[in-house]
């Protein structure tokens, strides 16, 4: 079973990477794109059922290590196995 953790810079935090990507998109002609925010996606394979308890536990992992709550938001969710 697997769990997905998505991490994004908080809206009020500057995202220079996203800005650089936006600039490149515009140079390529994708001028309809008006904003880019770049985040991270973690795919965690876990031993055991992805139940509420597992998600709670991995929420702690996300808040402790995968995301820095000072500058990033995160979301933990169950993912269907590929």
């Amino acid at each position: 079973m697997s769990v997905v953790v998505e991490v994004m810079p908080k809206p009020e935090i500057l995202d220079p990477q996203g800005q650089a990507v936006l600039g490149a998109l515009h140079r390529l002609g994708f001028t309809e794109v008006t904003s880019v925010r770049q985040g991270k996606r973690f795919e965690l394979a876990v031993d055991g059922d992805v139940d509420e308890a597992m998600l709670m536990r991995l929420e702690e992992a996300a808040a402790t290590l995968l995301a820095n709550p000072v500058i990033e938001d995160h979301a933990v969710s169950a993912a269907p196995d590929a």
Partner: protein
Amino acid sequence: MRVGVVTFPGSLDDGDAARAVRYAGGEAVGLWHGEDELRGVDAVVLPGGFSYGDYLRCGAIARFAPVMRSVVDRARAGLPVLGICNGFQILAEAHLLPGALIRNDVRTFVCRDQALRVENATTAWTSDYEAGRRIVVPLKSGEGGYVADQATLDRLEGEGRVVVRYVDGNPNGSMRDIAGVCSEDGRVVGLMPHPEHAIDSLTGPGTDGLGFFTSLLTSMGAAA
């Protein structure tokens, strides 16, 4: 005075930090990231570099290295700790210092001799300066933008915990031109610029950075 200098995988400036400790008259003691033993040191320097390849976030993995467990515990009990550049990022990740460091707003790595103003000359690492003193030390970082929420910034300013501020232009988008901050007790200091590279005119822009290291010896000597 025994001053520990931690080496993480990817540390670059541990050698210069140890040299700065010796220039100031202290004994530099090498500490290894994988051991939780602090070898009886009286203070710790977390040097610059790219610990663990800056994977995940700068300092995010180093923060959980065995040596950091001991450093965090002892720092909470008053052990003086100086985090320089990557060391500052590690201290922020470890929540020993508030805020975080993000990618420079200029989107490029910045490497230059940087002017700073010493705002707080009462910390364990800055007591040999006079408040308001202008110093020049190298700055070399890609993720040096200091950010924190407005309430935290106001609290830091109100409590005099902005230790050094960029002058003559903000190089990286740091909020309120903040280059370094300290803990409530003024014993844990983190800054992005590199005072350890400015201790000898032969190898740096001057000797303005040496005061960080002599301050420690002065303040610890006074405490003993």
